[in-house]
């Protein structure tokens, strides 16, 4: 039986690269007291890109956007080690790049239900990232200037690059994510609004840049934030997934803004693994381990919880 796979889904600039870099540092930072560990499960060369992201963060910089998610077929073999044994799984960050989701949403003729989407639709464990401080609503369409190309754009395959003519038209966050997720379910022939048996599919919503949200809003919890910030997406998720199979996390992969020199200096000193955190639950708790959502996606619970 093949290892389960977790797919990472998010639009451009959702914070995927930053999370993956922090995740890499977490996996390589040995803390003996941690009862559950997500670790790399292969030779170091397999994780070259992740280490590049981690290195950028640990010198106090954000990774260049598009640095990783546009490479073809990036699937990382990982394992979760805990008191009961080892669970091997694959982290798939390749076929759900932001541009591909945008293309799927816009239905550019050459990208309708391409083979990648069909193949990867089998993923039943999804980490969905969206920036808490930049949820694009319908009314914001067309007002945003085209983002300058940066990072490793010159090595990105053409099919993954944004359409120039559409570059200024970022799709609304909720609509694009709903379209991608309902497309994946449709490929598995799951009816719209159907909820499968508990554990048959799980979705972790990761609200990135969580530290940029006001304390008062954060204290109401990530789920409440999603209800207010992306009501349509929240409603869709609740209609299509069982409550036990849906978890919303606030994620600050770097624990603060790296453009703040004070915080960047701290990250350089302690490492991004120690700075980053997730918040979840009611009452809300903060955990300085950005791999926690993967643990939940695998087991449907946090093994380290009492």
């Amino acid at each position: 039986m093949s290892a389960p796979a977790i797919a990472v889904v998010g639009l451009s600039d959702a914070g995927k690269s930053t999370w993956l870099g922090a995740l890499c540092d977490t996996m390589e930072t040995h803390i003996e007291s941690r009862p559950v560990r997500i670790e790399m499960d292969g030779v170091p060369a397999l994780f070259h890109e992740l280490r590049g992201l981690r290195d950028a963060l640990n010198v106090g910089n954000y990774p260049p956007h598009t640095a990783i998610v546009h490479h073809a077929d990036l699937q990382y073999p990982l394992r979760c080690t805990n008191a009961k044994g080892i669970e091997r799984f694959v982290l798939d960050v390749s076929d759900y790049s932001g541009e591909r989701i945008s293309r799927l949403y816009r239905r550019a003729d050459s990208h309708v239900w391409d083979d990648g989407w069909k193949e990867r639709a089998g993923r039943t464990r999804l980490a969905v990232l969206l920036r808490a401080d930049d949820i694009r609503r319908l009314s914001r369409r067309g007002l945003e200037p085209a983002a300058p190309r940066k990072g490793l754009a010159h090595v990105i395959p053409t099919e993954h690059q944004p359409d120039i003519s559409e570059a200024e038209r970022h799709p609304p966050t909720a609509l694009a994510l709903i379209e991608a997720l309902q497309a994946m379910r449709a490929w598995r022939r799951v009816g719209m609004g159907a909820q499968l048996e508990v554990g048959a599919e799980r979705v972790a919503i990761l609200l990135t840049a969580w530290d940029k949200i006001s304390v008062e809003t954060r204290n109401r919890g990530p789920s409440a934030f999603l209800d207010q910030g992306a009501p349509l997406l929240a409603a869709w998720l609740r209609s299509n997934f069982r409550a036990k199979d849906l978890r919303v996390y606030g994620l600050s992969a770097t624990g603060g803004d790296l453009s703040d020199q004070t915080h960047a200096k701290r990250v350089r000193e302690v490492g991004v693994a120690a700075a980053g955190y997730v918040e979840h639950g009611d009452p809300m708790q903060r955990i300085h381990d950005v791999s926690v959502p993967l643990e939940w996606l695998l087991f449907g619970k946090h093994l380290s919880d009492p």
Partner: protein
Amino acid sequence: MRWPCRREGCTFGDSGVCGRAAEFTDPETECDDYLASQPPDAIAPPAQLATFPSWSGNALGPDFAGRMDLANPPLRVLVAGQPLSGKTSLVTAQFLDLDRTPSTSLPAQFAGSYTLYGYDRLCDAAFRWKEGAGADMPHTGRGAERDPAWLHLAFKFPESHKVRHLLLSDMPGELFNDWCGDKDGLDPSLIVPINVFWVVVDASRAKEKLQRSAARDLLGRVGEVAGSRRVEVILTKSDQVVRMSKSTKPESVLDAVADLVGQLRHAWTGTVPLQFTPLASYDGTNKKAGWRTLEPIRHLLEPTPKAPLHRSEPVSDRYVDFMGMGR
């Protein structure tokens, strides 16, 4: 002779007399024409679809809308109205409100849509629109690819876990002008599967004789074909009525609207009670989102009264009540 039954002598919709009484002991359960006129029940969504419902994201054409019937029959709404009456603005504002506010105001929760990109394009156009710039929302023009087009929404009921699919038409108003002039101006095959009629009337033009006449004509056509199907008159641009009523001669503005409602009720030849719903897709006075835009959708999601609907029921004038004008 009224739809749904095509037989001479059938007045089931009016008086409960079935034209095929010799064949049926209970037309409500045995008459295919009658059953076809009833809204489909919401059903539990299938965990496993028979086929992959490949969709484009844009408004649906008749082929796809037909295929949806296989899995879970949609409730089809014909959004009828004269050109510039506010049909497209209405369906756009409804989606904007779904995206803007938690859907706790509705009895069911948003569960998906096959036309998200189509809605997005409408919303994008609405956002670019500036009040007073003329032309209102981009006009849904004639064209092979848009004629007819359907916008899709799915809602899930939290208690029963059943899903209701809605298909809202987005058609050019000129088609309804044609229909008023010629009863065959609309393809009958389009009318037959309709479950609910929304007749969209621009309330801000209630004083215009031509407008009132056109609204009566359209409602007359709907009355000819509606049978026992639900009909809702949606009074759009009511924010402008409010604004006008606060400026000059308020009584004349409000009287005009009340008069229009009265005329429409009087002209109504259908068999079901008319429902009047005033709303504003955009509140121009306060430069913000409109109000009551989701009311017609709420009505679609609430339990549907089953026929026979020939009994006479008093029609509440919701517009008048809402506007606080009294009777």
